[in-house]
């Protein structure tokens, strides 16, 4: 009974407090589980503590795919959150649905917050923008695929981290194999060996300016450069120079953490997690290798990860709160905090400068690799890509790549299938926009 009374009085107090401040409450649906989710919660708490007018509540909704689907269902029921995190492969879906979101650039300028796209680092500016270069989604957890390596393993084998795939093939891998390691694994074949294969070598990935200029897009994945790459990868696997542990991300990362695999291609955003683990070896990271036979001037890679979209259909007051949250989120201090905790790149130049001047990269040089790679010279094909039903296109790629690596199909047939099915999906997506 005592507890009950106490409960009532606390509830009354809380209500009184809420009434007194009349805070605008907004919600944020995200897909950041585990340690990342805790950092997201910390950012929200920092924002709530930084001022008295707005309260943001982060809600974890599962995987990227689940978050997008939940957001879509909620939008159709008129129950959408104010802020929704959407991953790279879902960008075409959410940006294609004009009226589902408020472009972040408009949201900020309508609420009197300065917006200059030049403040953002080059690599993140246009991935979530429309064809005119207007930023629609606010890049949030921006990452890019980089090469992690076990320093002890490389030292034992007497090799340096490879700069090119030719070097890996002729020097690094044989030495690592000789030293008793599985030389290479990777965690996401569509992302690392397909999308970013095209940007690293500045190859067009789709027609229509990589899909930005319209929906009647055709994928250009069936090209000789990538087919040669996958032919090499399956040969490496035959010779014990590469191993594939299935489509799941973690299944390929675990053998690296266990010290069995010497080089692992993962996300720059994996850095925070790897540093927090007590790995039995020293690790570092460097840029993703490229084929010298394809290009001698390798270019920057795409950002991966996800961005935050302001959902439409909210009151001006709530939109103001969302805009203020974005202002807070892009401040150098918060970006640096997020970058240092997780390994995702800081999205503004100011935050990057802050990290440099604070000596973050002197303490952890590998933390800078992602942003260095995103800041490499760009090309015509390195801005990003925009393709509808891309989640399904990735599923097709994963399926066919799995079949290549288990010997069920040939590289030639697999890419013909991917091209055919992807183009069918793109044509179907074009009709959904009609």
């Amino acid at each position, binding site marked *: 009974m005592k507890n009950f009374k106490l409960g009532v009085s606390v509830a009354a107090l809380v209500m009184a407090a809420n009434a007194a401040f009349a805070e605008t409450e907004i919600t944020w649906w995200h897909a950041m589980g585990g340690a990342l989710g805790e950092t997201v919660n910390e950012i929200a708490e920092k924002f709530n503590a930084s001022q008295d007018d707005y309260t943001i509540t982060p809600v974890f909704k599962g995987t990227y795919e689940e978050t997008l689907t939940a957001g879509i269902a909620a939008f159709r029921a008129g129950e959408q959150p104010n802020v929704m995190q959407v991953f790279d492969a879902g960008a075409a879906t959410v940006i294609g649905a004009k009226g589902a979101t408020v472009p972040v650039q408009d949201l900020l300028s309508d609420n009197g917050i300065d917006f200059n796209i030049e403040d953002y680092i080059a690599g993140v500016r246009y991935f979530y923008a429309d064809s005119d270069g207007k930023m629609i989604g606010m890049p949030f957890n921006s990452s890019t695929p980089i090469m992690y390596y076990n320093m002890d393993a490389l030292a034992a084998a007497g090799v340096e981290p490879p700069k090119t795939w030719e070097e890996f093939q002729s020097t690094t891998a044989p030495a690592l194999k000789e030293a008793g390691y599985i030389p290479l694994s990777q965690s996401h074949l569509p992302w690392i060996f397909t999308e970013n294969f095209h940007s690293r070598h500045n190859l067009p990935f789709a027609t229509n300016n990589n899909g930005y200029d319209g929906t009647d897009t055709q994928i250009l994945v069936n090209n000789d450069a990538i087919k040669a790459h996958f032919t090499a990868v399956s040969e490496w696997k035959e010779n014990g120079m590469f191993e594939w*542990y299935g489509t*799941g991300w973690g299944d390929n990362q675990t*053998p690296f953490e266990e010290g069995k695999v010497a080089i692992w291609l993962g996300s720059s955003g994996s850095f925070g997690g790897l540093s927090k683990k007590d790995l039995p070896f020293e690790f570092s990271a460097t840029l993703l290798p490229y084929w010298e036979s394809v290009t001698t001037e390798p270019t920057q890679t795409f950002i991966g990860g996800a961005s935050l979209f302001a959902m439409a259909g909210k009151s001006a007051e709530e939109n103001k709160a969302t805009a203020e949250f974005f202002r807070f989120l892009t401040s150098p201090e918060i970006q640096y905090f997020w970058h240092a905790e997780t390994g995702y790149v800081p999205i503004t130049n100011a935050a990057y400068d802050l990290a440099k001047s604070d000596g973050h990269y002197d303490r952890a040089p590998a933390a800078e690799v992602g942003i260095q790679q995103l800041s490499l010279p760009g090309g015509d094909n390195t801005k990003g890509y925009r393709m509808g039903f891309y989640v*399904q296109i990735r599923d097709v790629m994963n*399926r066919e790549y799995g079949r290549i690596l*288990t010997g069920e199909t040939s590289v030639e047939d697999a890419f013909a299938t991917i091209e055919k099915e992807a183009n069918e999906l793109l044509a179907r997506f074009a009709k*959904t926009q009609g």
Partner: protein
Amino acid sequence: MKSAGFTTRWLPILLLVPQLSIIAIFFYWPALYAMQSSFYLQDPFGFGSTFVGLENYSSLLSSSEYMKVTRFTVVFTALVTFFSLALALLLAVKADNVLRGAKTYRTLLMWVYAVAPPVAGFIGVMMFNQSWGPLTELARSIGWDFKLGVNFNDTASAMILVSVWKQVPVNFIFFLSGLQSIPKSVREAALIDNRSSFGRFWDVTFPLLAPTGFFLLIINITYSLFDTFGVIDTMVKGEPGNNPMTLVYKVYVDGFRGNDLGGSSAQSVILMVLVLALTIFQFRLVERRIHYT
């Protein structure tokens, strides 16, 4: 004979309304909505849509991948149903003969019934873990380089094994109660006619179990087609890749992951028709041969 009935007309209707409205809201309405959306390609957020007629169906039927998934579903359903029933029947017959400690055996055999499909799938993922799974080690010891999530057939075997393991207890309970409802006098009479216990089983026990068996056949086919979703989802870890999947899982992959509402609606309509055809077939052809006592 006096016929029992309601005195007023509205009372029976009133009593049926709750059940009928549940069926209407949770079955007929979504089913009709699925049929409608299967003729469209629509933006997931609901802004644009194009009427495409039967295109969603024709592209499915001409897709070799969809046919592969269909073939796998048929094989998967047949194997899961067969092994679940056969193992459960064997266990039930053996358990029926046990007199001492019978309750303990039965409880142990029924235990797994309480495990939810995703949990069963998760246990499977651990048992078949690539680096330290005990069943992976076992397979390796007989020279089978088992790779869950990498090799199509290995993943399929693991899915079938876990699905069967999960379903055996349900069948066991029904078979056991079916066996125990066979009158003792019939068994004793059979004992005089036939000394072979194997022969007695096929001539007497099995036909008398047929109604239970038929019921379980339907339940198991439905289970293999639909309820194994949780097992499959956990075993492929949400990433279908080159792993096997069933038709129901494909509806989820294309509709809920891929946001292709039209295409996945067409898939679910196809499934609905398949299930309808299967049910008619079962009741028309199979049930005629079964005699209920």
